[in-house]
């Protein structure tokens, strides 16, 4: 995913010299293709995220499209006030990119678990929040946020992400992508955001094999949220399961719930995510997803128990 992001950005930046990439001293081996190809559009601002954000804002005010690259919570929570006052309030054309959403850096421990970023970024006016589900979505979203004038947050997985789209779907910011559309007799729909799409995909496959007709939608944009799709699906199915590698408070599921709560719906919603806790143990992403009950097996168990 991150390699797709860098490759896409190189292509975009080659044809637009106003695109700048700043790193907070992250991206060893990942950003090298960018700095080798476009050294004049690359800056390492060092390990200083508050300053990095301010620098990006100053550059954006001078007409640049600035990508601020780092990992985990460093480019978001560490410099949140700079994002609020300097980026979003000024509508600065800064794209905050964090690699390692959720438990991508699971073995590194709690400091590197990125599990509240969607909630915090989503609460900022003028902010676009994106979490693509696979490399295909990553490419499309990278292009879309580049063309959007204003502050965006891009939450990425690391590597080895499977591709779930055979064709390039047409996409606008704020639209969900159906992988399996609702139809008559669909009982359940799974809504997924970010790289945990693989668990959603496996769970949906398993549920359909078990005879529980289940739809699947990927939400590469969390803000603005695709109200139209949510309400359409909610009028067809009995159960919507939202899935995120993130705290259940304030994140993607909350965003879906906000839409549903203001309307009468056929469906009820189960928000699956981390249940407002930290972990004192480390482990692989796979292990931690299982531990927190957000892997494919847990989704299937949850749905079967409710249907």
């Amino acid at each position, binding site marked *: 995913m991150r390699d797709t992001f860098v490759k896409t950005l190189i292509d975009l930046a080659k044809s637009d010299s106003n695109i700048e990439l700043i790193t907070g001293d992250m991206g060893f081996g990942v950003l090298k293709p960018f700095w080798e190809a476009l050294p004049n559009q690359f800056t390492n601002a*060092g390990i200083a995220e*508050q*300053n990095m954000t301010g*620098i990006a*804002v100053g550059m954006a005010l001078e007409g640049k499209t600035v990508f601020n690259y780092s990992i985990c919570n460093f480019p978001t929570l560490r410099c949140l006030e700079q994002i609020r006052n*300097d980026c979003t309030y000024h509508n600065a054309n800064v794209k905050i990119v964090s690699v390692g959403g959720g438990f991508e850096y699971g073995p590194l421990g709690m400091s590197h678990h990125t599990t509240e970023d969607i909630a915090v970024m989503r609460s900022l006016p003028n902010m676009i929040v994106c979490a693509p589900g696979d490399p295909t979505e990553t490419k499309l979203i990278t292009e879309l946020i580049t063309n959007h004038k204003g502050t965006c947050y891009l939450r990425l997985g690391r590597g080895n992400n499977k591709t779930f789209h055979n064709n390039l779907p047409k996409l606008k910011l704020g639209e969900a992508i159906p992988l399996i559309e609702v139809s008559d007799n669909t009982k359940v729909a799974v809504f997924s955001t970010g790289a945990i799409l693989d668990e959603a995909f496996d769970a949906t496959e398993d549920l359909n094999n078990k005879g529980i007709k289940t739809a699947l939608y990927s939400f590469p944009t969390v803000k603005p949220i695709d109200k139209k799709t949510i309400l359409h699906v909610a009028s067809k199915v009995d159960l919507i399961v939202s899935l995120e590698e993130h705290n259940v408070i304030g994140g993607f599921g909350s965003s879906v719930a906000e839409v549903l709560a203001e309307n009468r719906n056929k469906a009820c919603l189960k928000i699956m995510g981390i249940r407002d806790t930290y972990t004192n143990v480390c482990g692989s992403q796979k292990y931690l997803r299982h531990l927190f009950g957000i892997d494919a097996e847990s989704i299937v168990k949850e749905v079967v128990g409710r249907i």
Partner: protein
Amino acid sequence: MTTKELAWKIRRHGIEMTHISAASHIGSVLSVADIIAVLYNDILNIDPKNPKKEDRDRFILSKGHAAASVYAALAEKGFFDVKELKTFYSDNSKFLGHISKEIDGVEFSSGSLGHGLPVAAGLSYVAKKENKPFYSYVVMGDGECDEGSVWEAALFAHHFKLDNLVAIIDYNKMQSLTTCEKTISLEPFGSKWKAFGWNVIECDGHNIEELKYSLSKDRSVKDKPTLVIANTVKGKGVSFMENNILWHYRYPHEGEEYDNALKELRAQKPDGCIDPYEVTK
């Protein structure tokens, strides 16, 4: 208008604006008044008829709580009508207590400390990369230098040789609750900036000629950002406000406080300078 007149008018507006709106930070406005006057009258390449002109110098007031001083300077320089200053702090006004980008001539909103220097460095960084002729100026408070982001930006500006960046410290040696020395000691202040690789200039922040000399682009040194430590007095110009922390938050109340402040200011009025409030009343 001479710079001395502009400085006096900034103080005069400051007293009036904080008085009628019961606003804080008159001590800071009086402290920074001469620095702001010199910047707007003698240093910054700006045009009130074309506030966004391409080659303008960029100015950021990072100690956003001294907003009244910049609003007053912009009004007196013709960016907008002086009468608009009366709405400072009031309902539905765009003259926020902390400096606002909604005002013609204001480059950037601030209010939380430690934000201005990184942004100014970003502006200068682009100018440097693209050979744009402008300078970025940023005015910071001394207490503001408690913020780590200031020192992050200090490292960056030095590393990237931003010799088109001038930071000015309104060094009145007081912050929110007491003196800087009793809060978090900054001294030896100039040495710290020198150690960070900056071209450091120290001057009397109430001496117009010293300020003109120190803030001039001629003082910049190749490949180094410039820091001007302007030694000031908090509350300068009103004796009972000088070096008195009370006036960081207290406003000049109706009666003795307001009357005496005005009396003292009027006694300092430069010859030929017209008090804007005597004309409009």
